[in-house]
């Protein structure tokens, strides 16, 4: 009797799976990156307000386990917070729970997004947009008070 369809639903853990995103700046093969992602204890956290503090992040992400380190994402030029961070746990299981229960909930009234990260390396704490912040803030057209207002290209018009 084949119930493999149902059984796969029962074992489903979709929130903790890898997303489609792969870091283009990663040094190594796709295979290397995916191997690291699958055993990583580090999460990338996006859509933060520029005003969200390390303390707030620690409080929220501490709900899924003991945090080893929080690294705030910085504008490459201004060296101020630019709306993302890395959260590293001691245990992968705690990071998985963050993916299951903290991803997609609110911090500072904003829905934040978490994703697996291959591991922090010096330099990765900086935004990769041309103006120094994150790429997404370069081109967006909307007004976001928590992320510096309009996108950079709009601001320069």
């Amino acid at each position, binding site marked *: 009797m084949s119930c493999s369809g149902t059984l796969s639903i*029962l074992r489903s853990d979709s*929130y903790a799976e890898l997303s489609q995103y792969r870091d283009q700046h990663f040094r190594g093969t796709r295979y290397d990156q995916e191997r690291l992602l699958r055993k990583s204890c580090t999460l990338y956290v996006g859509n933060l307000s520029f005003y969200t*503090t390390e303390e*707030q992040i*620690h*409080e929220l992400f501490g709900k899924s386990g003991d945090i080893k380190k929080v690294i705030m994402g910085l504008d490459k030029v201004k060296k101020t917070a630019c709306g993302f961070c890395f959260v590293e746990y001691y245990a992968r299981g705690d990071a998985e729970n963050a993916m299951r229960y903290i991803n997609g909930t609110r911090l500072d009234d904003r829905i934040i997004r978490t994703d697996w990260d291959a591991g922090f390396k010096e330099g990765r704490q900086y935004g990769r947009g041309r103006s120094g912040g994150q790429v997404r803030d370069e081109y967006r057209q909307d007004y976001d008070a928590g992320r510096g207002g309009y996108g950079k290209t709009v601001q320069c018009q």
Partner: protein
Amino acid sequence: TQNVARLLPEKLTVYTTLVGLLNARNYNFGGEFVEAMIRQLKECLKVNMYNEAVHLVRFLSDLVNCHVIAAPSMVAMFENFVSVTQEEDVPQVRCDWYMFAFLSSLPWVGKELYEKKDAEMDRLLSQTESYLKRRQKIHVPMLQVWTADKPHPQEEYLDCLWFQIQKLKKDRWQERHILRPYLAFDSVLCEALQHNLPPFTPPPHTEDSVYPMPRVIFRMFDYTDDPEGPVMPGSHSVERFVIEENLHCIIKSHWKERKTCAAQLLSYPGNNKIPLNYHIVEVIFAELFQLPSPPHIEVMYTTLLIELCKLQPGSLPQVLAQATEMLYMRLDTMNTTCVDRFINWFSHHLSNFQFRWSWEDWSDCLTQDLEKPKPKFVREVLEKCMRLSYHQRIIDIVPASFSVLSPANPVCIYKYGDESNRSLPGYTVALCLTIAIKNKASNDEIFSILKDVPNPNQDDDDGEGFTFNPLKIEVFVQTLLHLAAKSFSHSFSALAKFHEVFKTLAESDEGKLHVLRVVYEVWKNHPQMIAVLVDKMIRTQIVDCAAVANWIFSSELAHDFTRFYIWEILHSTIRKMNKHVLKIHKELEETKARLARQHKRRDSDDDDDDDDRSTDREDGPLEEQIERLQEKVESAQSEQKNLFLVIFQRFIMLLTEHLVRCETGGIDVFTPWYKSCIERLQQIFLQHHQIIQQYMVTLENLLFTAELDHHILAVFQQFCALQA
């Protein structure tokens, strides 16, 4: 089907019907299926998978309804289950499980079994009754969420189930809630040949057997709470049991997938006949408040409730608000551990909804003593809300009248900060240090600056220079923490950079204690910072766990003793200790395994390899490693035991002091402080029960002796009764 039956127990009648129909077509299939299920049941019991085993038993009993299993053979199996209660020298929790497996199957199959074998069933039920009357229930108060019986008593789970089954019997086994698809196929099924269950002997009790913990049935709603909607089945109705069991099963099946879990809960059949939202909210809080621990990680329940609110925005938030209000009203008798969970849940929930709440509804708490449960709860909630946002936000979201409960602005207190403090001893050194640190001084430079600090404990100075000097510690720690106050990362960097200085100053036990004291003095407005600093200092071995325990019970912290953050720190400290022991143990086991593999490889190579001399040399390093790790494990285990002993000792001292004072003063023992303290002691036992079980003999002989005040001894006795 078997796996699905085990993994989706809330849908079991669908699968039993399927099996029934297949059995009607193919007798052998039915036989093989039943045999496989029995094998699986035996396996589960052998490996302590008791929750799965219950579902297998229920599945088997429903197969009676589908004409797959003959009723008399099922009764025989239940007779063997109930006879476990006659076994001698076995833990009560073992008998409890077999009793539970029998009783909890009756809503499904009671009618059929009673129709076929009423005399035998009557006998089983009367044996059940006498067992339930004679079993001990000392453990129950430790597991209750509220100490009061009104409006809903917190019944022991077997007692509640027994009431429900008795009522079911009185109703002539008429059970109307469970969906029974097999009824529609009765004409086909009744033609089928039935199988007899093989005689089932319960596997004997062994030293490795670990039975489920006893439980208390959590209830917060009854039919009066939703007057407009369908009637909620009564607390002793079997429908209530079945609904709760199935909802718990759904959560157990889908806890990793919050959207699916919420959808499955809301699509539970019978929606228009039962107030489903109320059942769901009650079941979720039942799990969240379960003692000793919730079945799943706390944050899951917060997120699940948010998903449910998203799916039913017109009805569920109102039920949740009603539940919150009810929980608030009953705070006076709520177990402290459960209040902790309520605080965490409510503050996190609010942070997802812009902290919108009708705080004025709770202004009754403003007129109460701040140590009373209600104002205390609001204070702790506001503090947690602030941690998820920022201080001004909290001031803005509460009415002005609530400012007395608002958290302090989490700023650092630097005693050498103001010119007006220049008369303080160490002031000039503090200034020196500040300049030096800003100029990127090394550890050595710091040491030389600190050399100039006089030691107020002159007589203790043995001339070595590095004895306990509280002033040195004060000046250094105050200054450094003040300079690094900007963020957690800044403070962690500071601890790392000057690790050597810290280690030296905090070498002695008094040194460690004083470091902790100074950290508190600097950061008492920012409990979150204190917690992360203590965590870091333990992990970098600046202080040890016993020092933290002693610090928590010290007189300097008496004022904060009942605050939530103190207990978060203590339990986090204990957990670190536990994880440390497990980690070294694992290393030891892994190294032993490596040695064993090496031996195995050598044994299989023996025929080819004539060089036997290298074997001893190869073993050498690994054997040495194992010896070292063995020592490490023993030392860690000893440190772990010592930590618990220190904690228990301090509790006993503190509580005894209070009890004696009350007795001599003629005042009532039961102050808010006392309730909090005794429940915190209970919490230590409950949260770390597996580790503490190892120390029972020491605890009984050394600490929890008969001379102890009965109030304190009762906690220990309740704990012993949990797995007895």
